[in-house]
């Protein structure tokens, strides 16, 4: 028997069942967005309509929340890209003291439960007497978005052969010229992918946001209110469906960007620079 001949039926079935478990529930929301029932979650829907889309379109509170979410996500992604790249750049260089501590520090904001990040930030803002505002939301989001960009950047750094930077210096490029002409073009797609994921993460973050927001409502906070006290089920259904579709785009984009990077490497057939020294 060869191990790799064929997966057993059991393995195949449980893999497919697992994937279905992951995806079917979310697809159900799409169905509910068209239901005529607006007082309960009745299944199967008694009838279908598209009127809730128009109703949602005319809701200023939804637009406001969406606007704030986009603004926060854009700002925290920008901060995360800068800080994450700097960090990855330093870590990709020669070993130095405290390396492990730094990588732990970067991972900590997502390794620890979000509620801890949230409550620490909240009490710190209180102590520092910083009023809760859009800025405090961004501050919180950027903190846990750094790691996403960092992970993407460092994975790419590892794949870029260090001899490329040496070749650049060897050909007369200063450190800044190497950064501009060699590092950025090679790192670009990884940063873009990291940025997209950071955007998606920030766009629907709710746990930290509940602690760092004042009166402002981001879209997830708006949804959370609806979840706790359902008042306008049909609108919530439509918003949920839109959120699924909106976050799908950056995730797919990030996937295609990083996948291309991997394929380039495979095509390159670059043998690992086996230095004798």
């Amino acid at each position, binding site marked *: 028997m060869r191990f790799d001949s064929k997966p057993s039926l059991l393995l195949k079935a449980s893999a497919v069942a697992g994937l279905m478990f992951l995806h079917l529930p979310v697809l159900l929301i799409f169905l509910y967005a068209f239901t005529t029932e607006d007082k309960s979650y009745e299944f199967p829907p008694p009838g279908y309509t598209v009127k809730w889309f128009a109703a949602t379109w005319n809701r200023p509170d939804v637009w406001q929340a969406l606007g704030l979410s986009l603004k926060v996500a854009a700002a925290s992604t920008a901060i995360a890209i800068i800080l994450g790249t700097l960090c990855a750049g330093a870590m990709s260089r020669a070993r130095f003291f405290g390396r492990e501590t730094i990588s732990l520090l970067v991972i900590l904001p997502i390794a620890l439960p979000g509620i801890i990040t949230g409550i620490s930030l909240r009490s710190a803002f209180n102590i520092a007497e910083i009023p809760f505002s859009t800025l405090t939301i961004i501050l919180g989001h950027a903190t846990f978005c750094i790691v996403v960009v960092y992970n993407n950047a460092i994975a790419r750094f590892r794949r870029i052969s260090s*001899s490329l930077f040496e070749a*650049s*210096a060897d*050909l*007369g490029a200063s450190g800044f010229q190497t950064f501009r*002409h060699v590092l950025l*073009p090679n790192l670009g797609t990884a940063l873009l992918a990291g940025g997209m994921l950071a955007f998606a993460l920030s766009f629907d973050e709710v746990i930290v946001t509940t602690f760092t927001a004042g009166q402002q409502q981001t879209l997830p906070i708006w949804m959370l209110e609806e979840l706790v006290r359902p008042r306008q089920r049909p609108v919530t259904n439509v918003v949920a469906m839109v959120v699924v579709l909106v976050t799908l785009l950056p995730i797919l984009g990030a996937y295609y960007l990083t996948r291309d990077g991997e394929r380039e490497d495979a095509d*390159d057939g670059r043998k690992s620079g086996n230095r004798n020294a």
Partner: protein
Amino acid sequence: MAAAVEFDNVTRRFGEIAAVDGIDLSIDEGVFFAMLGPSGSGKTTCLRLISGFEQPTEGHVRIFGANSERIPPNARPVNTVFQDYALFPHLSVRDNIAFGPMVRGVSKRNRYAEASRALDMVALTGFDLRSPRQLSGGQRQRVALARALVNKPRVLLLDEPLGALDLRLREQMQDELKALQKSLGITFIFVTHDQGEALSMSDRLAVVNRGKIVQVGTPEEIYSRPKSKFVADFVGASNVLSPELSARSGGAAAWSSLRPEFVRISRGGHANLSGKIRAVKYLGATRRVTVDVGGAEITALVEANSPLPSPDSPVGLSWSPEALHAMESE
């Protein structure tokens, strides 16, 4: 002649390990210089000390008489052909070659013209717009060469540049590199672990082992008068005779080397040593004959069409007195 590169008691340590251990070396301008050694011997580190990617822990590396320690790699008058070529994957062949001129501020028009000329030189005319990914190993190697040479370096460093090529291509590139060096007249420093490559291409070569230079000389000197057993072994399949065996065969009581092609096989008569044929291996134009001389083996290279005694028959081995070379150390 002026020295292009000098190593003045240079040591480079990585933690406890000395990759380069107290090397003194002077490489003249305009020569094709090879550094030969097994992997891990420190020869690549020597190259990186010249290009500036490593700094000496002790000692000085001088480039055209100037101490190099404070000069960053991008300001050194040397260029490198990297082992993995290190072509920029995001740039076309033309932009790869024009990279050096670009960072020096040469206009686009001029640097592309330079790139085209460099491509002509390495026989890749018309490859300007290709991506490095579309090239074969040999072509990438030529692009790497053109990219380095377009900067008109005074010293070109080549780090095992032919290692990834197949045998035929390698031999062709050896000839081309040698011809290129002759016509440009600049110093080539060539790192390799292939003794054939080192011997056939270089004007001078250094044999490196465990961070130390064990012998420097012309290929002829290294080949026929190795200083030590290591050099004799590494440079070519040489016979190494122990002091007892050397004395028994009429030489000095010292470790000695004896080239297989200098050994003649006869049926009795006067001989330096006598023994029995153990094995015969055909190598095309020649045959390699292994003879047991009582506790040790001597190999001889003989022409394929010369008559040979049958295996296990007693034979005499003889050579001219200057063929047996007494070495300085084991």
